[in-house]
């Protein structure tokens, strides 16, 4: 086998996108989308509380997303999004330069469980400081730790140990430099906006990081950010320099733009309720849906 490009990610196959483990277990597609979206946000929030760099959090979210895809992927009837999110963070940090103990992870998820979703305010997460109140008891810790380790192994198995993640963040800055935008007075606004889009893409129900390579993601983020900030980029097909064709660019831009309306819709649907993040909660939600149909 050849040396894989350091810029490339393993991508989902068509078969993996067509059918998921949850669908085989008759979990409605919209529910799966909601749980996956909430799970990605939960992972992001846990990563912030664990003081992890965004690259590590992004990797964890991508591992989390890979787990659910394909007929042999994880099913919501067997795994709760919370446990998979926690195990994804645990796995990713273990391989990174910022390992986190099972205890920190268990405590952080216990705290996040107490916050009604979806109201993770990034600023609140960064300032809140009453961690001790949420420390779990020793017994609970032991149970959750075992659960964490078992889920970790299942993720490794389902992914065939494919934890490689290449991220577009550094590429994005390199591309902006190549486009010579940093001489512009509002260049940092553009760069921030582009980075924000890359973070948004992590939450996308279209699983952009599992279907497109980092160079294209970075290019689309820059394209959209430039349009939004009104900063003019070269009047040529510059995206081709970054190996993205017009069609892919268009698709990614539309996908990036659609996350906001999806998020708003989710907020409306789940207003006052919690997105089911455990196997039991998913079962309860399914029962509730059946009951309301009758």
């Amino acid at each position: 086998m050849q040396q894989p490009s350091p810029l490339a990610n393993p991508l989902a196959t068509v078969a993996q996108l067509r059918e998921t483990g949850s669908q085989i277990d008759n979990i409605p597609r919209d529910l799966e989308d909601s749980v996956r979206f909430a799970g990605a946000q939960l992972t992001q929030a846990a990563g912030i509380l664990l003081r992890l760099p965004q690259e590590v959090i992004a990797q964890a979210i991508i591992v989390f997303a890979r787990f659910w895809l394909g007929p042999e992927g994880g099913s919501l009837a067997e795994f709760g999004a919370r446990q998979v999110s926690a195990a994804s963070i645990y796995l990713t940090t273990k391989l990174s330069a910022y390992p986190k103990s099972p205890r920190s992870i268990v405590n952080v998820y216990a705290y996040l469980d107490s916050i009604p979703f979806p109201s993770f305010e990034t600023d609140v997460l960064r300032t809140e400081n009453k961690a001790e109140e949420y420390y779990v008891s020793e017994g609970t810790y032991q149970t959750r730790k075992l659960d964490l380790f078992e889920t970790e192994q299942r993720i490794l198995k389902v992914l065939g140990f494919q934890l490689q993640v290449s991220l577009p963040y550094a590429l994005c800055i390199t591309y902006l430099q190549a486009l010579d935008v940093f001489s512009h007075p509002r260049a940092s606004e553009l760069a921030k906006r582009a980075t924000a889009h890359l973070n948004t893409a992590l939450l996308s129900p279209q699983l952009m990081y599992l279907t497109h390579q980092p160079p294209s993601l970075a290019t689309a983020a820059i394209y959209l950010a430039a349009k939004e900030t009104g900063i003019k980029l070269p009047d040529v097909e510059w995206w081709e320099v970054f190996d993205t064709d017009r069609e892919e660019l268009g698709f990614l831009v539309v996908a990036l733009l659609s996350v906001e309306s999806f998020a708003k819709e989710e907020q409306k649907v789940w207003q006052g309720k919690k997105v089911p993040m455990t196997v039991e909660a998913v079962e309860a939600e399914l029962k509730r849906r059946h009951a309301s149909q009758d």
Partner: protein
Amino acid sequence: MSSRWADSEADAAEAKRRKKEKEEKKRLKLQKQQAEQEAAVRAAQQAESRPSKRRRLSNDDEEEEGKNGPSSKENESQRKLLRFEAGSWAPCRHTSNFETLNHIEEGSYGWVSRAKDITTGQVVALKKIKMDTHHQDGFPITAMREIAILQRARHTNIVSLHEILTGSASDEVVLVMEFLEHDLKTLQEDMPEPFLASETKTLLRQLTSALSFLHSNFILHRDLKTSNILLSNRGHLKIADFGMARYIPPPHAPPPTQLVVTLWYRAPELLLGTETYSTEIDMWSLGCIFGELLLKSPLLQGKNEVDELALIFALCGVPTDKTWPGFWRLPNSKSLKIPRDPSSSSLKTSSQIRSKFPSLTTEGVSLLSSLLSLNPDRRPSADEVLRHPYFSEAPKPKPMELFPTFPSKAGQERRRRAVSPNAPKRGEAPGMGDVDFSGLFGEGEGVKGSGFQLRVV
């Protein structure tokens, strides 16, 4: 393909965009056809054509296109964009797809055996991962690092990882790797004579090119030794066992452990407790392996940390302010009672490498001495080693095809348990700060080969 996720608004936008794109394509196609007709006419008119190879980015200035002729237009339609491929992922296969042939060795974190893929008949090496029975940290980090690094490190001189299997037991995990007939350690033990100079060169060059690849990909091996280096019957060398390997950490991350590299191959700065080390520690190990290939036995067989350091200083001389300025800032250097000015004592500051390897050429001695520089900053990089005149002088490196073949222990029979010490394990050895080196030069006498006591305070 309609998007199953996007809302209707986005769908509409998408459809519109696609339509526009289609029109654009149609227009381009028409243009191309016209251009081709023009080209035919023009080709008939003028014999000498000047194809413009300019790569174009813009569609806008079409008048210019006409001038440049058909070739530029063709370039445009063929504009090749780089495609990045990194495959996909699929669940682990079951271990029952393989049939075990014989066991090879038990390593520091797993059992290795030779096996056959039942469907393809391919012979492979299976490495079963030892799971931590106490479940302190979940899946073993060493195995995770080895897998992650082997997945990335595809090189002709690095053992290739085919896939990972799981067994019926939830914690049974097996690495499937390519099988090579020998490891350098066992092979050398069974050889009556050391490798020839030309063979040593070929082996060292393959080893160094693997190291150069690893280091340029920010990977430290951290446990290079002859038992981790495999050799095929065709003289092809590959580095194996990445259980200690890791990526060079980012600048502000907590420093990695100093408890790395098997004692006999461990660089002096590690023995002295440095917190910041990098690729130089692998280069020291490379020097030890070079010496071992020449001698047919390990170069610096210390009994413990103190003894190892004593052997190093006996071979390379004691460090001085001049040869290793950073030496006195290392945590354990204070407990070494080396005089600041060793020239006034009987301690040797010069290297004994020349006299230890009488048959080695001057270039060979120069390469070995530089690899075994006490000061890590003076050790050459892997790339520099590859450019060293040692490899271009006579005798030339022997072509791999001309390598002698040997009976394979791993392939045919049970192998003796390795007697060389293993890489240090987490929490096994006392912290380096606790090792008392004060006995090493206590009497101010010349360095003895061994016999120092390891005293834990």
